[in-house]
């Protein structure tokens, strides 16, 4: 059986796993964006605090993904929970770092002008700082998306959802029937998914960035 026939035969399963993969990545990204933005908003005004935040995120980032999944098993068992936790932790670094950089690069004179015309701190944050930092923040989210797209495959190691299952079961049965097809199908689909996501980010960027600051 060649790859094409393999895919045709297991169409339904592959569709389902692709959907699961995409859905997990999107949900983890949303969670990581929310957490990352909160961390950035709390820390960006202080050089020390933001350095500590990006430092911690960097350390998490350097843990090999395989090891991280493994380390999460004792605490959270198998399945979706450890997968989501690991993906969110990986996605945090680019988001936190870009958010901090984006917001601290907002011209202080603009913040001064905003305060001077009577905007509250919160209004300055939502009306001035976040919109101006948005293109940089979005780039961070985009990088995270690409990153966890691949890492999500390893979630299969802790019996997580997604296309990783194809790869892992294929690799485990190497030499057996359809082993290579299975691993290949999983890999190719992840690559395609990553390309689709990237295209979506370009679109989101255009739709959500003010014409006044679009490059």
């Amino acid at each position: 059986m060649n790859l094409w026939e393999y895919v045709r035969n297991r169409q339904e399963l592959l569709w389902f796993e692709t959907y699961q993969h995409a859905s997990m990545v999107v949900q983890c990204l949303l969670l990581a964006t929310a957490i990352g933005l909160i961390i950035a908003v709390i820390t960006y005004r202080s050089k020390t605090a933001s350095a500590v935040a990006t430092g911690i995120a960097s350390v998490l980032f350097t843990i090999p993904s395989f090891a991280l999944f493994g380390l999460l098993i004792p605490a959270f068992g198998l399945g979706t929970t450890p997968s989501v936790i690991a993906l969110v932790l990986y996605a945090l670094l680019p988001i936190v770092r870009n958010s901090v950089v984006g917001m601290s690069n907002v011209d202080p004179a603009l913040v001064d002008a905003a305060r001077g015309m009577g905007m509250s701190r919160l209004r300055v944050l939502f009306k001035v700082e976040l919109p101006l930092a948005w293109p940089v923040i979005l780039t961070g989210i985009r990088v995270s998306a690409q990153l966890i797209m691949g890492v999500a495959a390893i979630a299969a190691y802790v019996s997580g959802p997604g296309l990783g299952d194809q790869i892992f079961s294929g690799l485990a049965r190497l030499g057996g029937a359809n082993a290579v097809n299975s691993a290949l199908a999983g890999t190719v689909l992840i690559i395609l998914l990553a390309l689709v996501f990237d295209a979506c980010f370009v679109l989101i960027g255009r739709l959500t960035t003010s014409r006044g600051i679009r490059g």
Partner: protein
Amino acid sequence: MADNGNGSGGAAHGVEIELRNLTKKYPGQAKAAVDDVTMTIPAGEIVALVGPSGCGKTTTMKLINRLIEPTSGEILIGGEDARRRPADILRRHVGYVIQQGGLFPHMSIAENVSLVPKMLKWDKKRTAERVDEMLELVGLDPANYRDRFPRQLSGGQQQRVGVARALAADPPVLLMDEPFGAVDPITRGRLQDELLRLQEELHKTIVFVTHDFDEAVKLGDRIAVLSEGSHIVQYAEPAEILARPANDFVRGFIGEGGAMKLLHVTRIADVDLGAGVTAKATDDAATVHSRLAEAEEPWAVVLDKNSSPVQWASIEDLDGKTGPVSEYGTPITTTISGRADLQAGLEALLGSDTDFVPVTRRRQYIGLVSLNTVQSAIQQLREQAKQAAPASVGEGSA
């Protein structure tokens, strides 16, 4: 104050600002950034705060809208303690203009201008009308500029939008922090002229921070010269500071050419002009000739029926001639308005091939300005300053 008064016509005139023993000390610094400043900024006037960088002039200004909270002392705006209201609320009633306008690049021009009215919960229609009115006020066609973004505008235009934004909610008080510092000299001159024109209409109380003494002279009804710790070295009208600087510090700040700057603050109509010999266009040449001879003047100014100066008639041209004097004159090419300053008068004199330039008020002849006129005017200003009460130092002459 005018929080939601009339939307049209910029109705809120300026109110007095009073600073009482205002001090700002930052923790860990021995010297106060602003040290016990007391001054009164009269309603409807432009007061320029000038001083070297780091003297605390910007800090002093930011104390007024509480972008910086004072360590001690009081600020009264229109007789009301500025600390009675929450700082954010106070600032919505105090216009604030910074260098380059401080426009938000991600918002359209209309969005920028409408920010404060929106915070004051003006309704949509009134806000939109106000935006157009403000853009017109600063000389930008609303239809053309409303939906543009700041980066599509020149520096000077951005600065104008900055002023429009600060004036949008019709605040009685305007704080301007070196607003024209980042534009080229020609644009700066034009923006300064425009600010003066606006002020003639609006009568706001404007605190204008600058390190450029010439700008202070041009714009300020009063100038406060500040030294370190925002100490007021001299607080007086520009002419007085120029004619009688309080000490060497002020003298150093005025720099070279104090007399030239004095020319800048004196209107031609306010000095003693030469009357000259005038003639109506229909006067007989012979009569004018004898009047010139009698007055020992070489030239007569021929006026038309509206009293506008139109021709020069020299004594030689008229010699032995008869008939209407207008047949022998040479056209007057240069005249100057009495509202112009003496420096412009001097320019006109240097650019003209005659020793005199006719001065007009609403096109009507009021006299002649000559190099002599300028010189004696300066001497007179110096004399006046000397005779005036001792130069106002410290808390000012208000």
